[in-house]
């Protein structure tokens, strides 16, 4: 059986890199990996998701109630993916919303606090991350993906070693970014 993980958020938040690093780390451990991503129209401020299966599987797409873990970069997007969570599955999510243009011009409503309360009342294994506070403390606005990924690894639902994610990160990013990304990866663990 595969470990099934969903990364979700809004275009531009860094979900793709988080998913790539996880895949690369799993490959270092000689595991089979499959992913499916939204590309194209959805990248322009739309909802984006990446389905990932680590281990034996035929297709990369996850069915309803089959995800071991949801890594949400935005609370509303996390709720959108919740039907895919398996019973007893874990959720790691940022609680800071991204307001859509349609809400700004009054064509739709978006109450992000309601999303967070909904998650609290419906998910047992829930880890909430306050991105604004985390990124302020780390001192870099661009490492949300590493903070969330670090928290995701903590749940044990990914089944990949943090050291392998760190090694994969070093292969992809320039050396000057290693230190801050490593700190971001361990941020939730040290709290």
């Amino acid at each position, binding site marked *: 059986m595969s470990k099934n993980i969903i990364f979700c958020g*809004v275009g531009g938040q860094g979900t793709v890199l988080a998913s790539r690093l996880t895949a*690369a780390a799993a490959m270092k451990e000689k595991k089979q990996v*499959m992913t499916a991503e939204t590309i194209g129209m959805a990248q322009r401020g*739309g909802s984006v998701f990446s389905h990932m299966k680590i281990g034996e599987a035929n297709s990369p797409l996850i069915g309803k*109630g089959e995800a071991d873990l949801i890594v949400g970069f935005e609370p509303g997007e996390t709720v*959108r993916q919740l039907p895919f969570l398996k019973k007893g599955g874990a959720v790691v999510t940022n609680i800071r919303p991204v307001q859509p243009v*349609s809400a*700004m011009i009054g064509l739709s409503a978006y109450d992000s606090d309601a999303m967070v309360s909904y998650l609290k009342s419906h998910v047992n294994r829930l880890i909430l991350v306050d991105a604004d506070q985390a990124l302020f403390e780390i001192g870099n606005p661009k490492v949300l993906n590493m903070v969330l990924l670090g928290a995701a690894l903590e749940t044990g639902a990914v089944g990949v070693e943090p050291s392998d994610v760190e090694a994969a990160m070093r292969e992809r990013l320039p050396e000057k970014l290693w230190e801050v990304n490593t700190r971001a990866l361990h941020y939730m663990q040290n709290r």
Partner: protein
Amino acid sequence: MHREFLMGNEAIALGALAAGVNVAAGYPGTPSTEILETVAKRNPGDVKVEWSVNEKAGMEVAAGAAISGARTLVTMKQVGLNVAADPLMSLEYIGVKGGMVVVVADDPGPISSQTEQDTRTFGMFSKVPVFDPSSVHEAYEMIQEAFEFSERYGTPVFFRPTTRIDHGYESIDVKDPGEYKKNDPEGFVKDSSRWVIFPRLSVKNHALIEKRNQELSLVFSGYRRNEILAGAGNYADCRRGIATQGINFSYAMDAMGADHPKIFRVATPFPFPEQKALEFLEGLDEVLCVEELDPVIERALTFVCGKYHLPVKIRGKMTGDVKPSGENSVDSVRESIASFLGTAESAGVAGSPEHESDVCPKLPVRPPVLCAGCPHRASFYAVKMAMEGVKKTLFAGDIGCYTLGNAAPLDMTDTCLCMGAGINMAQGVVRVDPEVKAFAFVGDSTFFASGITGVINAFYNQDSMTLVILDNSTTAMTGHQPHPGTGRTLMGDVVEAVRIDEVLRGIGLTTVETMDPLDLKTCIPEIRRIADEPGVKAIIFKSPCIVRFKPKSGKSKVDPDKCIGCKKCIRELGCPALVLDGDKAFIDPSQCTGCTLCEQICPVGAIAGGGRNE
């Protein structure tokens, strides 16, 4: 061999390189674009690869190379095949010498296309054999086999992945460049009895094609990818079977696990492997066809049952057992199969979500929007302001990022049909009501792809309209490919750029004005003046794509003491960087590019700080 984590499109490209492709061409289109980009990126050095101006040009380049003995690859999305249909239909009658694989990416859903057309059906129509991969790793191997079949039978072949194969990723084993096949094409050999299509040649070759496709049906029955899996576990002796294809096969296997009835996976839907189908149907009472887009397998099996008088009931889309349109998913496939096997109740066990989406709070609506700082927003806004109060207007749109100009609050796209259609459609609208002030918006890449003939048609036929070229110096929607106006090629060469203004003047247009759309004060009166001129006039809004060309700019900032909270900037522009903070406007500095559009329209001058300082 080595292992890589590859996107389906990358695997297809590496498969073509492993097969020794010599010439590759195509036009960008989701979900096919990354194939040609990967051929260019991983080019071992001797592959000639180009972004063609459109799919027809790409098909013709590939055809010329293929009759010269080269292995050729041409890539496009499914609607692109419509553009390339003319050369392909005739090429099939002539045939090829080197292997020629036409990769057409289909888009069930559709997720980012106009139609849900099925290239398998196009294969039947054009008589071109079709290969249909089920996974990323299979796509890598199958395209190499497709080249072999093409060469052996002297015909172009279709290779048609769908979005979930194109954009899925898998860790797979691929060949090292040293293991790639080497082809030395002999070059074009003159033979007018072979390469010049005339009715006499068509009559002769049509008969040969029909004969060959009958033979291919037999050959494909022995092709290992058209496979039958015996019933297993609880369904070992079941008299029901499942026929499926592509990603649906993978969904079905994931949904059923070890307990499954007899399965027929169809990898070559045309010519249909009839003998293999007979083997599958043996001992079955009922078959469910699980496929996306057209009911191709369902029709073929129904035909086989009729032809051989088999008492097997074939079910699928046409019998209402599988949804007739839209994309399938693991869940929809699981439901269709469970209800076919009569296990609908136990089917809930595998997929039992803890939560149902219908009881959760209202989810945010996120349609795609133009980026913060996108010059298209300024162009649309300028035309909107210029034509404010004019009773009859038409804003004909086209295909590209700028189709997003249809969304509120801009609401500046009245029509959109297919690449290049807006110009001629505007002519038609004006013919019916000459009082309409018509604007036809077209992007730079789309102008080269199929806009030029439209302009000539409108000019020649004496119609009146304002042509608006949204020139952002790239093909933005599909990920920033170069085009003839950019002066760069996919091979990395810097070449003479084709100038849009000179093309328009060459056609005969006398009013061709180039403007910076981010300068509203200058643009708006100019647009109005040009709109009132008779004949075909052109405005070229020239401003580079903000994603590709990051300008050095200050960021715009709202002075909360001056902001009166009228929300004009937010309501009229729909810029994702503009949000409401309490009752005042606020600009998200991480998104703002300093385009100054909001500064220009603020009625109290409360926004400042932006502006390009090149």
